[in-house]
């Protein structure tokens, strides 16, 4: 930027300057731009220190350079002006000198003509044709011809011998020149007398009449002049002198008049001889030059001096005031025809030359611009430096903040580390204190203390969780899990709390949700636990309802469910419209236009779940709704006093949902309830297993009687998980017709407690009717809320009911209850379950089985289970022991091996056993040992079944790789055990074959 401006300014500058300087400037420009580029590079890549010194130097150089530059500009322009002035002066001076010379020459020529006139008319004629009067008149009338002469006079050559005669003839005596000034002394008179010749003036112009009769040879200059003039035959000038009368400076030009015509080659002697008179012209130089200059314009602007420079050391000033030799002047030489005399004209301007304003302004302007540019540069560089400084400072601060953040984490870690010992002690001691004999008050105190301790611990955990999520250190797992089982677990967690408050707790999972999903179930559990925990906290009556749908399902149902009946809820209380809680979801809007959402779900492996928690609690005040997800923000300060908690749960949930590429939202109506909804993106699992689908109730039909369809839906969902087909019936009056007229037999009737008690009188009638019809009476089960169940147990109609199922419904619990209800009376239905047991008994009867497990409880259970099937069970507590016992020859038919054992795990033990067996088999094959030693068994291979709690594919493969024959899940499950055991017990076994042979 800077250099760009700079270049521009330079271009402007070049406009001011002449062509000559352009080149130089361009060079400079190029150089400076190149410099700039270099500097730019330096600035970008050089170290800061180098940069700091460089730009200072450059700035200094720049200023100095431009200061010199402006000085140069000033000098250059000024000298140009001076030159111009000098030229002007020279031309003016020369012009004047030429004019003066011309006029002088004209005058001289005319004098020469006058001299010839005199020689012709005075000397050649006798008597003379000219007398004084004629001469004076003629001279006067021809004065315009001699512009520079103020007067002319003629002196005649008079020899000494002719003097007296001449004096007589003229009538006056020859006088000495200077006699007019002082009375002539006698001696001088005598001097006059003694001369050889005289040159008395005989004719003179009227103005100079006073010079008549003066002897010219007596005047010093005149004499010299005359002598030189007659020698040379040309006009001769005197040095300037004061004229006799006017006392002004003058010059006398003298011409010699010769008797006869002389050749140009005549010798000076001849000339002297021939001379007869002398014509003198008086030049009043001062007046004349004045007059001349007057004729020219601009006389006043110039000052002219005329010097006689015959003697160069002592110039005689002829015209002009004496002036100091300062300033501009010009010298022109004047040639007045006399080669001995040298004249010069000096000219100078009267005014001093004006100040060179243009040069001054230009140079100053340039300097100012350069300084401005320098300042801009300086400002920019210092700005850059400042910004850099700021940046560095910011970086430093950022670094410090980051360090502080690390320090914070370390502090948290350290503090929690330090807190743990006392907390451990406190909680442990409290636990121990609880076990001692305490009265009620003491126990209450201890309970409170323990609750506080636990709250503290959970607070720290939550804060750490939040910190971890914020720092992005939290990584999500991706493991297959059964969402329904997870939800059942959560429900059972809140069972106690819901029971205390008398809330109805229910879960519904859409059947479109796959059985096994891949994701982080722990985190999903955490979110749901958070939401349900909140709901329970703020709900005093009504229900909490957890629903799981597939996103597309919700989209499809959107149009149908426009009108939601406010009473059609789980417990009859109105709820907030949950659809509004996800209205703001981006995904929702994004996918809304998709015409066929089912395509979306099938095409990709991802599955978008939408999970809602609906409650009928106090709701969130409108003004607090905006900050629900802000950490540590609760609705009001009183909330934390009443309900406890830190207010961080929802914030963590939001973060977690965000990590799972989902969104969370809510809708809340004060005094009606809140619904929190979130979405998560999970992956479908390839395996598809439902632990309950294969239960003994598969294919059964159940009639659910409930006047609330929403609640009946939940019941139906749970029954369907067990494989039971459920038929919903709202009206109890229709039950009888349903039971009797249905094409398929209904195995059980599940009646909602509320519906039962609403018109309890109808039930005995129905049952008696059924009994009367001699039908296979279906079992009647009552669905009850935990609170209401106890008191009403004694109601009259209870005798007809097989079991009361306490809500919340969970698959496992429902299964147990149903089994209890169904199992006791009806053997037919548990046939599926019995079959493997009986077959197992056949298979395992009197088989020798070794069970290896380090856990004595597990050992005992396995022992009990296998013994039940008639097997002879031996136990071993470790892998090593098992190896010892399984060293051939041994009596065992099979071995059940736990995988995870200390010292030696199941895999290792199996490997060792297989190695051992292979060794012995080899020996037998090679006949190294007699077969009899090994009970005539040719090939030893004891079936080893792994016992494992986790039924993951990888474990299975690992089992097979280690030489195991199969695996059974722990704890034993009849069907699986049967399946696995049949695999190798049905195979023809060599041992048995051998026995048969023997």
């Amino acid at each position: 930027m800077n250099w760009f401006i700079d270049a521009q300014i330079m271009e402007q500058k070049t406009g001011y300057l002449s062509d000559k300087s352009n080149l130089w400037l361009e060079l400079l420009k190029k150089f400076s731009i190149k410099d700039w580029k270099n500097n730019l590079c330096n600035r970008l890549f050089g170290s800061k220190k180098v940069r700091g010194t460089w730009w200072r130097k450059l700035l200094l150089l720049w200023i100095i350079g431009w200061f010199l530059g402006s000085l140069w500009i000033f000098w250059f322009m000024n000298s140009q002006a001076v030159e111009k002035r000098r030229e002007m002066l020279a031309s003016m001076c020369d012009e004047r000198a030429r004019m003066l010379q011309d006029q002088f020459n004209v005058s001289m020529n005319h004098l020469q003509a006058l001299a010839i006139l005199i020689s012709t008319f005075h000397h050649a004629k006798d008597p003379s044709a000219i007398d004084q009067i004629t001469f004076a008149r003629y001279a006067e009338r021809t004065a315009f011809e001699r512009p520079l002469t103020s007067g002319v006079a003629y002196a005649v050559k008079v020899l000494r011998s002719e003097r007296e005669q001449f004096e007589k003839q003229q009538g006056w005596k020859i006088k000495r020149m200077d006699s007019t000034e002082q009375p002539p002394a006698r001696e001088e008179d005598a001097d006059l007398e003694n001369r050889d010749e005289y040159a008395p003036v005989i004719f003179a112009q009227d103005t100079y009449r006073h010079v008549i009769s003066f002897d010219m040879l007596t005047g010093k200059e005149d004499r010299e002049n005359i002598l030189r003039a007659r020698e040379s035959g040309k006009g001769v000038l005197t040095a300037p002198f004061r004229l006799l009368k006017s006392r002004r400076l003058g010059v006398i030009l003298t011409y010699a008049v010769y008797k006869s015509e002389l050749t140009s080659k005549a010798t000076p002697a001849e000339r002297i001889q021939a001379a007869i008179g002398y014509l003198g012209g008086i030049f009043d130089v001062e007046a004349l030059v004045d007059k001349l200059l007057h004729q020219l314009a601009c006389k006043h602007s110039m000052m002219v001096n005329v010097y006689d420079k015959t003697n160069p050391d002592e110039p005689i000033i002829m015209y002009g005031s004496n002036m100091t030799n300062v300033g501009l002047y010009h010298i022109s030489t004047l040639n007045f025809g006399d080669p001995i005399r040298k004249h010069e004209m000096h000219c100078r301007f009267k005014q001093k030359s004006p100040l060179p304003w243009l040069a001054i302004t230009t140079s100053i302007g340039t300097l100012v611009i350069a300084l401005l540019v320098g300042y801009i540069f300086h400002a920019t560089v210092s700005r850059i430096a400042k910004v850099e400084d700021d940046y560095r400072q910011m970086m430093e601060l950022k670094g410090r903040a980051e360090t502080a953040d690390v320090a914070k984490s370390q502090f948290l870690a350290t503090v929690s580390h330090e807190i743990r010992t006392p907390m451990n002690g406190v909680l442990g001691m409290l636990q121990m204190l609880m076990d001692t004999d305490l009265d009620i008050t003491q126990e209450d105190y201890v309970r409170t203390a323990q609750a506080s301790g636990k709250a503290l611990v959970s607070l720290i955990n939550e804060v750490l969780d939040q910190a971890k999520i914020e720092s992005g250190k939290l990584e999500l797992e991706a493991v297959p899990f059964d969402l329904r089982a997870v939800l059942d677990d959560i429900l059972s967690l809140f069972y106690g709390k819901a029971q205390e408050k008398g809330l109805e707790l229910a879960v519904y999972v859409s059947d479109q949700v796959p059985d096994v999903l891949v994701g982080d179930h722990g985190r999903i559990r955490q979110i749901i636990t958070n939401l349900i925990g909140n709901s329970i906290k703020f709900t005093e009556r009504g229900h909490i309802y957890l629903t799981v749908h597939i996103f597309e399902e919700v989209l499809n149902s959107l149009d149908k469910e426009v009108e939601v009946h406010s009473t059609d809820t789980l417990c009859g209380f109105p709820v907030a419209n949950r659809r509004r809680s996800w209205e703001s979801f981006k995904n929702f809007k994004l996918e809304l236009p998709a015409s066929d959402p089912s395509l979306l779900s099938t095409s990709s492996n991802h599955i978008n779940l939408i999970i809602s928690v609906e409650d009928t609690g106090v709701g969130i005040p409108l003004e607090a709704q905006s900050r629900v997800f802000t950490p540590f923000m609760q609705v009001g300060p009183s909330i934390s006093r009443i309900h406890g908690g830190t207010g961080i749960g929802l914030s963590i949930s939001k973060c977690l949902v965000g990590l799972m590429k989902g969104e969370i939202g809510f809708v809340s109506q004060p005094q009606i309830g809140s619904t929190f909804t979130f979405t998560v993106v999970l992956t479908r699992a390839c395996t598809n297993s439902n632990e309950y689908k294969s239960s003994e109730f598969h294919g059964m039909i159940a009639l659910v009687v409930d006047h609330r369809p929403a609640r009946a839906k939940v019941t139906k969902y749970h029954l369907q998980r067990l494989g039971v087909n459920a038929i919903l019936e709202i009206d109890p009056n229709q039950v009888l017709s349903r039971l009797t007229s249905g094409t398929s037999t209904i195995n059980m009737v599940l009646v909602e407690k509320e519906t039962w008690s609403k018109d309890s009188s109808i039930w005995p009638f129905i049952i008696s009717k059924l009994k009367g019809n001699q039908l296979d009476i279906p079992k009647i089960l009552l669905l009850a809320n935990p609170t209401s169940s106890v008191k009403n147990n004694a109601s009259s109609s209870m005798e007809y009911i097989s079991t009361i199922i306490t809500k919340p419904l969970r698959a496992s619990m429902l299964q147990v209850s149903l089994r209890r209800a169904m199992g006791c009376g009806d053997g037919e239905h548990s046939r599926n379950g019995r079959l493997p047991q009986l077959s197992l008994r056949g298979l395992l009867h009197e088989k020798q089985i070794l069970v290896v497990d380090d856990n004595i409880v597990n050992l005992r259970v396995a022992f009990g289970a296998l013994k039940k099937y008639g097997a002879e069970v031996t136990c071993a507590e470790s892998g090593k022991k098992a190896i010892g016992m399984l060293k051939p020859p041994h009596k065992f038919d099979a071995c059940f091996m736990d995988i995870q054992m200390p010292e030696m795990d199941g895999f290792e033990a199996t490997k060792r056993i297989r190695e051992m067996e292979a060794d012995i088999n080899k020996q037998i094959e090679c006949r190294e040992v007699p077969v009899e030693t090994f009970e005539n068994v040719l090939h030893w291979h004891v079936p080893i079944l792994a016992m494992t709690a986790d039924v993951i594919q990888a474990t299975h493969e690992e089992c097979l790789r280690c030489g195991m024959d199969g695996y059974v899940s722990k704890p034993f499950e009849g069907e699986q055990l049967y399946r696995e055991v049949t695999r190798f017990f049905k195979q023809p076994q060599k041992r048995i074959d051998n026995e048969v042979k023997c």
Partner: protein
Amino acid sequence: MSLMALREQLNGLVNSMFLEGLLDDQFEQLQMLQDESSPGFIAELITLFCGDSERILAELTKLLDQAVVDYQKVDAFVHQLKGSSSSVGAQHVKLACVQFRQFCEEHNKEGLKGIYFFRCLRALNVVKHEYYLLRGKFDTMLQLEQRIQAYESKQQI
């Protein structure tokens, strides 16, 4: 109290334990295992379980009390407890153990000393809590069974 009443009481107790989720269907299977040939099976198992669990819990408490916690040992113990509780069908104890193990694993994974300590501690407390809750019920159950057996033997005499 009559034999029937005692039986009913026992059934009620077991039922309530099922309902609360303390026990799962594994216990039911165990109940099926108990028959005339092994009358004291459940009682024996429960005693075994309780003894084993208490030993493990004591070990765990001791481990977590140390300045440097060996989380691998803790994990091994919790695994044992998880195994035995799932064998017995003690669902809540099992779930608590699963949670506990998760924290242990995270601890091993992250290597953050102290941060997960609390979770482990809390998890241990949860396990203990669940265990003591269960043991209370088991104690009652055993007592009832003993009384039933006593009755039965009396009647036989």
